[in-house]
């Protein structure tokens, strides 16, 4: 009875090649879909930026520290508020109106 030679791998089914081919095709399809989705996302975002004349992204912390959970909920940290003193970085003071005294309170004076 003839014995199978030991010095070669069984490549008759080309299993490895088929797996590689399928993986590459899947990867290519995924890449094309991702690029398409991102292109659409980018165009939509740019349209909204232009329409609303936005100039500050919502995702980057703009204070002196990175965002932390103490910044109350999912909302974004400060952007450049038009009503705030230039050097005031406290979170409480960036809410419009919070720099002004409540009704009945007196302004602090030096």
């Amino acid at each position, binding site marked *: 009875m003839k014995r199978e030679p030991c010095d070669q791998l069984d490549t008759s089914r080309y299993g490895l090649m088929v797996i590689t081919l399928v993986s590459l095709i899947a990867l290519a399809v995924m890449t094309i879909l*991702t690029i398409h989705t991102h292109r659409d996302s980018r165009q939509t975002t740019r349209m909204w930026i232009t329409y609303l004349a936005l100039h500050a992204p919502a995702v980057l912390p703009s204070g002196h520290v990175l965002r932390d959970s103490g910044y109350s909920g999912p909302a974004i940290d400060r952007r450049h508020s038009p009503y705030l003193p230039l050097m005031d970085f406290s979170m409480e003071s960036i809410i419009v*109106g919070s720099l002004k005294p409540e009704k009945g309170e007196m302004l602090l004076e030096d």
Partner: protein
Amino acid sequence: MFNTMQIWAFRDLLRRPFESLLLGITLTLTVAILGTLLLFPRALHDTLNTLLKATPAIVLRRLDATGFCPLPVQASVLAAENVVGVVSVRPRIWGVVNGPDGPLTIVGILENKIPKALAGKLTRLPEPGQVIIGFGVSSGPSANTLNLKGEISRNYEVVDRLPEKTSMFTHDLVLMNPEDARQLIGLPQGYACDLAIDVFHENEQDAILSDLTASFSWPVECVTRLQSQGLYAGRLNRGRTLVAIAVIPGVLALCLLVAVNTRKSMGRQSDLGIMKAMGWTTGNIVRFQLYRELSVCLPSVFVGTCLSFVLVYGPGAGWAADFFLGWNTLPPSLYLEPTGAATVVLEMAGLMLVPMIASAFLPALKGATADVHDMIKETGSR
């Protein structure tokens, strides 16, 4: 398909299948983690740089002793339009107010009709008492109303939501009628918060600043698009420092892997001795070692790189953003820039493949001048 030398290398790997498998898995995970750490800030930087190009060329604000203050619309627009190089001037009404779960950015929409570009994306503009909210805005106990507190406190009806894919800029936005916005931030009639100015040419941004400042009869501050890009690049660099700290354990893991691989390879001198005794040349052994290492390292680097791509670009870097930057609910859609991503892939491939393959060459080089008998006598895993 495979030559004899490659088949020998495969068979040698299969002599210790679990060891090879573990090495492959470890390499894959190390590449995936390191790749993600390197790709994430790159993707963020590319994305922001791309999007910031759509922002106004110059934002002009009025200053007084207390800081920024409202500017009169008519006089300001007239003054800005008289400056040579200015293409369009748009007053903006916006501010930061308190929402149910924290601060929100409100924007008053000044235009009367929906622009053609957004015809399919926006069905109607907010009427008085109505708002359109960003994806990250939680409307509180009721899904249809939003309570906002600024100069006044009032409930608004939520009529629409901004698309999630625009979250990079619109996550915390609340769009509303300009009159509502005025009331909420206490802005007098006929005044705006600032001006968004566009110029004809990119280079004019800096060139016309002095003319622009001189055309106003009160002190103003101008921020150009280039300055904004620099500002955000600086902030991203701070984030990158944090990422670099996270990369250190990854590099340490890689060093340990290389050390283990070198030790393991050096312990196989007896195997190499037998090969030399059978007539293999040093060149043959070097090729054998090369095939052996590549058949583990190449698939690992490939799979690991794909994993990091999917983690960063695929589903949106929600988890990475949460882990590294603390964005709790934001799913930013990061954009793939082929040039930047290719650089990172090459970095990763070089970082992993070169030391791993070098560690496999050491025993072959050591065995090149060694006596075959001495090599066979050395303890090894035959």
